[in-house]
């Protein structure tokens, strides 16, 4: 690069056009990236890991699952086993949670109750996920009049107070269920579970999915307008591939977080109903029914109330905290 001879007494900037020769083209854009490689799932997982509360609640959930499923296998007692001579015992080494007035070991009953809560949570989550996301995405994708009609239906379903419906359905299927079960053998477990629980599942299936449908539809509507979707269309992307490769992957974060938070709400409702006597039927134990059974003896046998009460609160709390953490971690990073 030539430079001009400097004028010693000049006050001006001594620059010439040679000082501004263009850069070597290989320099263009070959900037390095400061951040390390980070995909969506890895980044979310990292955020989740850093959230101590969420990790702790995940651990808690793990313990609860073990408690519910492995516990009864280890316990020497069955949940409906009435042990003569052990009625009404306070917590002791033989019966860690004590026994109820019929001599049934409360620890194992609590474990079974936890199993029911978890089952309810998981089944409702699955129902909500499948029905809700399909309904919501169809509505969002088709748009226009179809979308309007579908959302009106959602509005109406949303306003039905589900508890009332559960009660109503339970009363209806109570006896027919008994008949059905006694005639067909392999449906036996249904009877153990009780008409109340079946009613709960029916109602969950028919009502609970609307929240999810709304969220999924909202997400899809938002995404549909995004430029990268338009870009893919111009590239020639088919409708099917658009959904598969672009819309769904961008929704999944929200989907998972919402489903996760669905679980504690379902567990809450089941416990509540069982407490009122509308859920599981005796001798099956639900954390709610255990509490209501124990309520009568609260003056002398407070321990019978405490264990299922604390347990249910722990379960719901754990799922709530984890769901919150998951939602925060999956927050999609759309912009820089």
């Amino acid at each position: 690069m030539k430079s001009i001879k400097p004028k010693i007494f000049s006050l001006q900037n001594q620059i010439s056009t040679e000082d501004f020769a263009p850069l070597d083209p290989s320099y263009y854009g070959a900037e390095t990236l400061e951040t390390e490689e980070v995909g969506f799932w890895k980044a979310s997982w990292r955020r989740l890991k850093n959230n101590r509360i969420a990790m702790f609640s995940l651990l808690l959930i793990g313990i609860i699952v073990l408690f519910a499923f492995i516990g009864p296998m280890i316990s020497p007692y069955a949940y409906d086993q009435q042990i003569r001579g052990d009625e009404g015992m306070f917590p002791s080494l033989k019966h860690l949670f004590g026994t109820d007035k019929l001599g049934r070991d409360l620890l194992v009953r609590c474990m079974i109750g936890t199993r029911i809560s978890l089952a309810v949570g998981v089944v409702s989550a699955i129902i909500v996920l499948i029905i809700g996301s399909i309904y919501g995405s169809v509505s969002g994708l088709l748009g226009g009049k179809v979308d309007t009609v579908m959302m009106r239906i959602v509005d109406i379903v949303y306003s039905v107070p589900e508890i009332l419906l559960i009660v109503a359905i339970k009363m209806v299927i109570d006896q027919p269920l008994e008949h059905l079960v006694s005639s067909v053998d392999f449906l036996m477990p249904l009877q153990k579970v009780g008409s109340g629980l079946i009613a709960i599942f029916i109602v969950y299936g028919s009502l609970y999915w609307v929240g999810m449908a709304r969220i999924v539809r909202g997400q899809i509507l938002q995404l549909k307008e995004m430029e990268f979707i338009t870009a893919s269309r111009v590239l020639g992307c088919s409708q099917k591939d658009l959904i598969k490769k672009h819309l769904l992957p961008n929704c999944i974060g929200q989907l998972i977080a919402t489903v996760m938070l669905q679980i504690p709400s379902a567990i809450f409702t089941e416990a509540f109903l069982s407490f009122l006597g509308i859920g599981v039927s005796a001798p099956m134990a639900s954390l709610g029914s255990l509490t209501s059974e124990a309520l009568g003896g609260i003056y002398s046998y407070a321990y019978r109330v405490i264990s299922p009460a604390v347990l249910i609160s722990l379960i719901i709390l754990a799922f709530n905290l984890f769901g919150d953490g998951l939602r925060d971690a999956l927050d999609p990073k759309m912009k820089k």
Partner: protein
Amino acid sequence: MDLWQKIIKRIFLAVISFLIIITVTYFIMNMVPGDPFMSDKATAATQAMLKEKYGLDQPVYVQYAKYMWNLMHGDMGNSYVLQKGRAISEIVTDSFAVSMQLGVRAILVAICVGIPMGCLAGLYKDRAPDSIIRVISAVGISIPGYVIAAVLLIVFAVNLRWLPTSYGKPGGSIMPIITLALYPSCYLARLTKASILEVLNQDYLRTTRAKGMGEFTVIFIHALKNSLIPIITYLGPLTASVLTGGFVAESVFNVPGLGRYFVSAISSRDYTMIMGTTIFYSALIISLNLVCDILYQVVDPRIHMN
């Protein structure tokens, strides 16, 4: 105009929802095998006569039409089991008066406790008040109502003997109110906190500060006003949760309200009572949701911008 259009649409939807609920519940109730007189030790002839008296021998659709007709005149039939012969509408009104007393107080408590808690948590974000409130509200929304009721009973009634176990006696309403108000207060606290934070970060508040107005004015006049708007949408679900929470609170604490009645109606299979209560609750919840919905439309500033 646009606003009226929306309001009318919503009212229309609400009415339809209500009708659908009634119809569905009615037909479900009718599917229950057996009729109310089965347990009565009456002869077949008496049973037939009773059936005719109550119109149960006519086809379902006719019964339905009659029921709806009566409903429009405020007649929900009579209770068959719990209080034989007494008009359900009467039962409902009387017992709901009690429930409402309890419920309204619970809602007030929830609002007076929850919203300030949320404000505190938002203003002192990430500091001590926020952490404490976060913990309290996370726990508060996870504990089912009956657990709170049970715990309160054990601690205050059984062990400490400070409070009576039944409603009606002095101090008897404290525990039911706490039971009903806990979940909503915590939920409101979370909602308010999120709402305040969102508003506090908005640029228009920065301008207010830049103008030199004191922090107090900034927060209380401008921020609060706007952050209260999303809370209005919660008022509907809030009342619904207090209502359903009432089932438990009234049962545990012996409150002679509609919730307790409903629960006993279920166990004694008083179908007309169940039907009547369902209708009443549905109407209540739907209308409250409607009112909140409309209020929100009116108050949302974005609607006024055209």
